[in-house]
């Protein structure tokens, strides 16, 4: 009997234990299953893979064969340089003893030069604010045409990580994730070296392939500096720009326009103006959804400028509309491929005429609404064609994507 009792007790004990055990397991499951937040970082990785390849002469020739409108400019009343049609330049004469930023070119110490040298900076949409890269040219006297060599230049840079292209007077390379193009020519008539350098900082995180491609295009520009047989050529359309320009520049423009496309099709409200920021945090292009009165004001202004009757408009200080007009300024308006190119000048108190560049404005009609796309900054007249072609294409297609890409 005692045994039976004992057995009963054991069975009861086991039953209780079993159900408690199940409960315990369930509680554990409940507690551990409750993940409050799942954090999974989804970082976009930049293509920094090691797919670096040196560029063959044939590939370089392919880039050299791409269309590039050029113009010849006179520097320091002496040197004819051929630069891209869209570029502007600034040239200054530097006394060797003032030299601080360049130092040496190969084994030539600029501080020890006998004569001043010319320092030229080239500017365009993508060098503006050091957005993508910077480029400069140094022109200095040297009687010995064999003094400068690529080997010396290479040595002066120290450790170079990868050379994409090299010939007797050019070098495209990567160092510490920064990109460089170096090129020089010797001007035998003026016994001077023309030295070109372009640089993109390591902080610009773009795919390696696109950066290398850009720096080969810059080498093409550098190789054209002493080209004295410029054939007048122009880009005829946005598609033409896409096919012949560095892929990275086109990608940056398209990245900005992807946002503008969404603004146009979805987000923008009446009387709202947006200006998406570039990767370098600068403004580039703005888009405005104009109410009827502001749209009419703009055309009233354009007509008044064309007929030289701006002064007769009773109220032509249009503010916060399509284009800010101030009384006292002198305006000119040109029409090109559906866009308006507005140039203004104003007289300062001392009588000096002030000009700051051209604003490109392109009307866009989308679903019966009137939008105006315009350059966020005033740009040099030389650089307007890129914007005119880009705006004009967008105004017809509502995207910058072309069939070829």
């Amino acid at each position: 009997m005692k045994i039976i009792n004992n057995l009963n007790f054991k069975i009861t004990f086991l039953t209780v234990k079993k159900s408690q055990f199940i409960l315990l397991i369930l509680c554990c499951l409940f507690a551990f299953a409750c993940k409050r937040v799942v954090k999974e970082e989804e970082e976009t990785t930049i293509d920094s893979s090691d797919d670096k390849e040196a560029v063959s002469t044939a590939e370089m020739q392919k880039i050299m064969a791409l269309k590039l409108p050029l113009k010849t400019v006179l520097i320091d009343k002496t040197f004819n340089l051929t630069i891209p049609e869209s570029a502007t330049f600034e040239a200054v004469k530097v006394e060797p003893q003032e030299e601080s930023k360049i130092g040496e070119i190969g084994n030539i110490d600029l501080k020890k030069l006998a004569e001043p040298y010319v320092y030229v900076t080239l500017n365009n949409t993508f060098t503006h604010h050091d957005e993508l890269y910077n480029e400069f040219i140094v022109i200095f006297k040297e009687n010995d045409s064999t003094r400068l060599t690529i080997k010396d230049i290479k040595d002066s840079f120290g450790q170079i990580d990868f050379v994409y292209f090299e010939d007797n007077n050019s070098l495209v390379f990567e160092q510490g994730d920064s990109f460089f193009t170096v090129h020089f020519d010797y001007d035998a008539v003026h016994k001077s070296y023309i030295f070109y350098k372009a640089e993109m900082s390591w902080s610009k995180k773009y795919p390696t392939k696109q950066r290398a491609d850009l720096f080969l295009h810059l080498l093409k520009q550098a190789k054209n500096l002493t080209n004295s047989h410029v054939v007048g050529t122009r880009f005829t359309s946005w598609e033409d720009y896409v096919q012949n320009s560095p892929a990275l520049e086109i990608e940056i423009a398209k990245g900005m326009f992807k946002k503008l496309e969404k603004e146009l099709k979805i987000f923008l409200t009446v009387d709202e103006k947006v200006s998406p920021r570039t990767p370098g945090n600068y403004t580039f292009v703005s888009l405005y959804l104009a109410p009827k009165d502001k749209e009419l004001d703009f055309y009233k202004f354009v007509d008044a400028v064309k007929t030289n009757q701006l002064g007769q408009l009773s109220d032509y200080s249009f503010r916060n509309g399509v284009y800010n007009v101030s009384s006292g300024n002198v305006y000119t308006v040109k029409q090109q491929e559906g866009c308006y190119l507005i140039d203004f000048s104003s007289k300062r108190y001392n009588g000096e005429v002030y000009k700051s560049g051209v604003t490109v404005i392109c009307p866009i009609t989308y679903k019966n609404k009137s939008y105006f796309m315009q350059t966020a900054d005033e740009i040099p007249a030389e650089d307007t064609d890129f914007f005119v072609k880009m705006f004009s294409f967008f105004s017809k297609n509502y995207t910058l994507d072309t069939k070829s890409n």
Partner: protein
Amino acid sequence: MCMFKNSILASFVVLCLASCNPVGETIAEIPLSVGEISGSNVLDLKKGDVVTIWSKITQRSDNDEIPFNVKYNIESMGKSIAFDSLKATNGEHIINAEKSTESYTQSSSEGDSTKYYTLKKFEVENKKITIPEDGKYNFDFKVVDGDYGFANRDMLIILRKTR
């Protein structure tokens, strides 16, 4: 008694299943800045997936709370399937709340003084969207008013997926 036990067990099982990952899997984190459209990468979603929009908000006790609206657009195959707006601070469900006391030094002609303020960070559930068809989706957001986004105020949209 047995019935009672079974029902307890059943409710535990239900609770267990329901409590698995209650807020869902994070599928995108999208930083916002005023006047800019910020978007997700392309998201591969299935019919019936529920995407919840969460806002991660930082508030300082020494600043007035600035209400702000976020417009959003959900697109698939180039077509907008939802375009609406949400008030980022609105929502009952709050998670990952943190509170800390921060300080800064204020200088004046009377000398330097230390100012203290409370920094609150939290995530608030704003909207749930049920995906209508299998496909690739883009989520775009734009802050439309309020002056959010200055001085280290990191404002994020977090997308989480449940089924």
